[in-house]
């Protein structure tokens, strides 16, 4: 729901990700974080919610 709302107001798809990882799923945690970093890097710096300095 939140992901959809964020994309609706102009966040790039993929900028927000949520995963369910149990405490015992160490490997899943590593791959998820790796994937996420990759993806975020490819999206470049966030342009949403940036303010001009007053």
């Amino acid at each position, binding site marked *: *729901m*939140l*992901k*959809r*709302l*964020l*994309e*609706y*107001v*102009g*966040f*790039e*798809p993929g900028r927000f*990700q*949520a*995963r*369910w990882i149990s405490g015992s799923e160490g490997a899943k945690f590593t791959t998820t974080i790796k994937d996420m970093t990759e993806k975020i890097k490819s999206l470049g710096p966030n*342009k*949403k*919610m*940036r*303010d*001009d300095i*007053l």
Partner: protein
Amino acid sequence: MMDVIQQLREQAKKLLEEKKVDLVIGFGQGTELARTTPVFIDSPEGVSKLTWGPFCANNLAKYLTDYKNAPGNIAVVVKGCDSRSINRLLDDNQISRDKVVIIGVPCSGQLEWQKVSAEIKPGASLKEVVDNGDSVSVKTDAGDYKFDKKDYLLHRCLVCENPNPVVSDLTIGKEQPVKNYEDRFAEVQALEQMSTEEKNAYWDKQFSRCLRCYACRNVCSVCTCQTCVFDQMLPMWVSKRTNLSENTAFHLTRAFHVAGRCVDCGECDRVCPMDIPLRKLNQKIHKDLGDLFESPTPGTKPGLVSPLGEFSPGDPEEFM
């Protein structure tokens, strides 16, 4: 419409005289011809203040939580949309059912008072309002006016789901036909179709206008937190600075905070002094709730649990 007003006053009088309630919250004539204002009546003599018509936009269920801990019972006048708030407040244990008498009034749509007011001669006094189905006639001492509903109705009324109250103790007035609006989410869909850049530009423009007066939050009938995160000073989560990022944070938080509880009464949208289309945020959530969870508009039935408040094995699991 006159007979509805008459009955309203009679019923309210009876409730007060028989001491079934100590307070009646209803609509009274406002300070503009096409405007009403909430009235709080505590004696049978006061019921002549009550009125009804196509200018009763406020959702009076909002006030019930003010009297949560007050002694005595309260009667409240609600339209169909407002009555959804009552169900929500009951489900959230914000009010107790036996303390509230719900006076439901079927509603054929509310007009935007500013639009109507702009057309009527200033200073004219109201004689009668007649609902003709597709239009409303407003008769005044300075002449009669006719307003086409499609041009003057409040935005939310154009796709009204519940013209008749979904919960009430007594209903006053004729039941209104329920229409099924296929294009209920047309505006949301149009926005969804836009590119990320377009969406961004659209919402940035809207949010940057925000004054942070918090009218949208304060008018909301399901915003029932004692202290809002946006008011908290220790710690101060969100700064008072009104800039795009803080404003965006505020609006997203507000919309998501009421996700699954928002009854789509459209009050936030109506009261925004900067005309920020807040309902487009809430409706996006309603649409997704329907698409993902087949969930109806919150409050349409008593005991509806928000899909965001419970787990069911059939829930979509995009995050696994």
